[in-house]
């Protein structure tokens, strides 16, 4: 019972059970405008997360759209979960989601770093980190469920504009 609940907690964190980020308005709109469009995305993924919690950008044909100042990245086939990120600098988009239950606050932090971007190519690093607030309830429950206190996924992504 507790194992299922924890998977659901972490899974919920991983997939956005929590507040949708609001754009700050101070980040680079140029970055968002330059990323909007259709891209083929590929790249190796590294992860120490358990099966089911590994995270990566949607692969293959993807559509990147501006949703009220947030970048929405969706697979053309709908196979992979979409990602919603907020521009937080000239070359970075991010999203942090926290979910709190009594005695335990979990956190998911997504980061999309854009290292190269021109009219035809883009590349960079996408990371997803799951962690918690260090509360004893979190640690104990995660241990009971044989889940790690923290796990990381990283994708060295490359994209070419379609």
């Amino acid at each position, binding site marked *: 019972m507790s194992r299922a609940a924890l998977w659901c907690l972490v899974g919920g964190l991983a997939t956005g059970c929590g507040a949708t980020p609001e754009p700050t308005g101070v980040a680079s709109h140029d970055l968002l405008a330059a990323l909007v469009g259709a891209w083929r995305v590929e790249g190796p993924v590294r992860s120490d997360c358990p099966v089911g919690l590994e995270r990566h950008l949607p692969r293959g044909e993807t559509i990147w759209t501006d949703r009220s100042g947030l970048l929405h990245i969706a697979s053309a086939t709908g196979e992979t*979960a979409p990602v919603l990120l907020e521009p937080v600098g000239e070359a970075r988009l991010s999203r942090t989601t926290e979910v709190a239950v009594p*005695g*335990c606050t979990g956190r998911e932090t997504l980061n999309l770093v854009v290292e190269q971007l021109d009219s035809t190519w883009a590349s960079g690093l996408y990371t997803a980190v799951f962690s918690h607030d260090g509360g004893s309830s979190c640690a104990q429950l995660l241990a009971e469920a044989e889940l790690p206190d923290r796990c990381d996924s990283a994708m060295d992504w490359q994209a070419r504009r379609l």
Partner: protein
Amino acid sequence: MRAERALVVASVMLAFAGCASWEEDSRYGYPVFSDDDVGVAAVYMTFEAQDAVSYTRTQNYQSQVLMKEDTGSARPSALTALMTGQVRDLFFMRDEEYIVLGRHDDEVERSDGSSERTIWYDRVDLDGTVTSIAGGSTYLSMLSCDGGASSSATAGPLKVIPSPDGTVLAQFESTSSCTERSMSVTFLDASDLSVLDGPHTIPDVAPTWSGSTPWWATVDLAWSDSDVFAAGFWGSGMTPGYLSASTVEVGGIVTEEVVLSMDCFYPPTSSSNTSSAGDGVQIDDESGEINASAVSLVGAYGCSE
């Protein structure tokens, strides 16, 4: 202490009750123009969905081909029964009176950290007759050379793409391992699926290495001309906007290190979600209504130079 833990678990369950169950769901998707821009094909999908508030996990897809021979807004008619798997490719070759449907099922992780899935390609005649072109077996979809710590998508590993005039099917297959990769293309007569030519080996480029792990170059596939099939390689140090490619002509002439503009590779043939005039086609997820004059985010088929 036990009571406290029970309270925590109960709260978690309450907060995430919606996350736990899989529900039946469905939607329309993947609209494409026919090769002559006159008709539209699309897919109706059923699947299981698990709601996690702002995100939905999905699995166990079934797909049904829809088709109409006009571009009006009415929902296309069902052409087939539901078939196992999710659409990966759809091409409507109206001039030659068939549709190519590519499907795959859910990815399954293997004990070595790689993943595999079953892939199917079918020809669907416009009377609804379904004929298998290739597939039905398991293909490596993600390759891991370090026990699952990292992995990357494999090329293909199976794709079928009709020539721009619809008379020939290019059947691309690849196998990838931690030591080698091989790719081939076989040309089929689209009318009876007999082999016209091939298989022909497609020359590859060397992988890049991360320690002892090879990263095979991502491959773009397309018909670059009416009778030339091309495999373009990412990361080959080309001028921006171009790819180094290997090309195979129907008839067997194989050429390496051909420089092709990137726009040659998408769309890969004359049927896609962008018309020859550059319009896009969309389908309403819920109603199946068609919008054939949407803004397209990609160019029309063909090389700009």
